[in-house]
């Protein structure tokens, strides 16, 4: 993959639902700001796979709500919060 020029490289994992408006807004915000991230649409997973991912979500957000954004395995942002995203990603 071609390297993209971004000011800061952080590992970002987005846990989302494919049907959720706030999750969509979060993705759009990250895309618009050229942020690279991994994401998982938890509602499209089933069985053991969903269990495994929900265990990850649970560790960061016991309320298990979406979107849950984990940054560098050290910080979590729950819900679509542009200000907090900007701050955490130094945008």
């Amino acid at each position, binding site marked *: 993959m071609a390297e993209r020029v971004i000011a800061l490289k952080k590992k970002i994992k987005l846990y989302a*639902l*494919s*049907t*959720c*408006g*706030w*999750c*969509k*807004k979060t993705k759009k915000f990250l895309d618009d700001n050229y942020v690279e991230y991994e994401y998982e649409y*938890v*509602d499209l997973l089933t069985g053991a796979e969903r269990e495994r991912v*929900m265990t990850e979500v649970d560790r960061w957000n016991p*309320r*298990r*709500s*979406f979107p849950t954004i984990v940054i560098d395995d050290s910080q979590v942002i*729950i*819900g*679509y*919060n542009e200000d907090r995203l900007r701050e955490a990603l130094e945008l």
Partner: protein
Amino acid sequence: MSPHSPEAQALYERLKREAEAAGYYLNPDVDFVLDLMEGLLTNEKRYGYWACPCRLAEGVREKDLDIICPCDYRDADLDEYGACYCALYVSEDIARGERKPQPVPERRGTVPGPSATEHEEELVGFTKSGIPVWRCKVCGYLCARPQPPLKCPICKADRDRFERFA
């Protein structure tokens, strides 16, 4: 702008009409609401009911009852935050564009539903006729009749969203 299906458009118009007739307001961001309509339609196909598009449904109606749109938490979230959890329903000032909806924290699981003790109490019925009173868990509508209505006349919630009140 993302393309939306005619079904989503039709559902939006129906819910808007029903909301306004009952004193509720839909989010004025039509594009956002149409996304939610697509989410509801997807969940209807997937599960057979309108599970909240912003929550992870189990796929079993009994387990998801409280998050079937309109959810049991809508009115409390409207009161406290001016929007329901997914921001389909909003307060009047947000509907008028005077304020923007903010993310609403998940209320599900934070408030015990009608307490267990409440259910343990024997229901004696206070109506002179002895007819039971049913309460819609979504909007609080009360009615005295042998069985709850098939649909709540106020918020259109299904019969299984009613609980015995008296």
